[in-house]
């Protein structure tokens, strides 16, 4: 069996604190009872396969991809909002030029998806999808409309709080994150099993964007700040065994 002359230098990404992340199985979220794996995860020391990952460039993004209000002939219905923030690692360092994808319901709480049975109108001027790359300092910005709350079948009279789905790649397979951003003061938040699956209150608050009067643009749009923190790397490399 051939071996390379020396082992690769692996500086792994730090592991997550389970109190700050939702568990796989959370009974109040009914679908997790059907679908969450029951056997314990197997701890895998990161290898070259996990500390590398897909990286996208500007060629994959169109100019209007971060403005969900300009993707059709007319303007969508709803309250125009800016959602802006930074993508950082767990030491506060910016994650530059990384892909962010978002998707959301329209102002009436309806997704443009064939499986969405919510009896609310579609908006011909709103697709509800956007993508962008962070800049050199990790900043990003979306222009969209305030999504509506929508009913779902999880429990009697269940409604999802207003939210925007976020998907981020970061720098490696290990940093991939799919999450949801919620809005400060939404009365549905205390009843939402997805958000409340996260054990620590402080951790749940990290998914709630903050209204920012300074970023709000007069006579045009309300602004919300939402920073996303991805896993960062250990301080020292792991070399050989």
């Amino acid at each position, binding site marked *: 069996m051939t071996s390379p002359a020396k082992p690769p230098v692996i500086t792994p990404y730090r592991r997550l604190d389970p109190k700050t992340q939702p568990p796989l199985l959370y009974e109040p979220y009914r679908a997790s009872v059907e679908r969450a794996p029951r056997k314990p995860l197997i701890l895998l020391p990161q*290898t070259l396969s996990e500390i590398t990952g*897909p990286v996208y460039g500007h060629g994959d993004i169109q100019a209007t991809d971060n403005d969900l209000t300009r993707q059709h002939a007319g303007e969508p219905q709803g309250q125009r909002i800016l959602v802006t923030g930074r993508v950082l690692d767990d030491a506060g360092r910016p994650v530059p030029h990384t892909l962010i994808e978002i998707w959301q319901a329209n102002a009436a709480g309806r997704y443009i998806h064939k499986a969405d049975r919510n009896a609310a109108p579609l908006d011909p001027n709103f697709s509800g999808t956007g993508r962008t790359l962070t800049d050199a300092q990790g900043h990003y910005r979306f222009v969209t409309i305030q999504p509506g709350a929508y009913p779902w079948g999880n429990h009697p009279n269940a409604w999802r709080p207003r939210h925007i789905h976020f998907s981020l790649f970061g720098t490696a397979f290990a940093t991939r994150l799919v999450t949801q951003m919620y809005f400060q003061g939404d009365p549905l938040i205390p009843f939402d099993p997805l958000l409340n699956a996260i054990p620590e209150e402080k951790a749940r608050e990290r998914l709630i964007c903050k209204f920012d009067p300074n970023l709000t643009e007069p006579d045009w749009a309300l602004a919300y700040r939402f920073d996303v923190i991805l896993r960062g790397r250990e301080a020292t490399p792991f070399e050989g065994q």
Partner: protein
Amino acid sequence: MDYTPTPSQTVGPFFMIGFAGPLLISHIAAPGVPGERVKLVCTVFAGENQPVNDALIEIWQANAEGKYNHSGDPQEKPVDPSFLGFGRQGTDDLGVCVFHTIKPGRVPANDGSLQAPHLVVGVFTRGVLQRLPTRIYFAGDPANDSDPVLALVPAARRVTLLAQPVPGEPETWRFDVHLTGARETVFFDI
């Protein structure tokens, strides 16, 4: 400042509206990319055999030389800029999605040995609040016996990580993901 990583949430049932377009990738390797061609047919199940029609599968892999198209791979081997090594598909009504790619080469392990050819995989679905990381190895590859990651898995469960060749269909491999049930797939904490 608090820089604790942001919590994960489920991808939900409607992610395809966000991922439709250029970044929904079935052809990981275009025709002409060097390597042994692989058509990978993935099926996602919950319970014993219920197909999951709203799962998302993401794949990351090295090229045929065992080199990743990423700045974090220090190996002095060439990369083909046309081969990123990333694929992403949603499952259909039968729980199936298909990738067209090449079998990756062997990537160094942390102890300097070589890992067996494998793809790293992330499974996302409604009902699961985190990404589920797993790996796809190729049944019958002699390198599997000395792979340090497979060695972490109880012997009886290793089969859940093996793609199987489909009889009578050249270059075609089948990989089943069982979220739950007796044949539950091995998922990793990375």
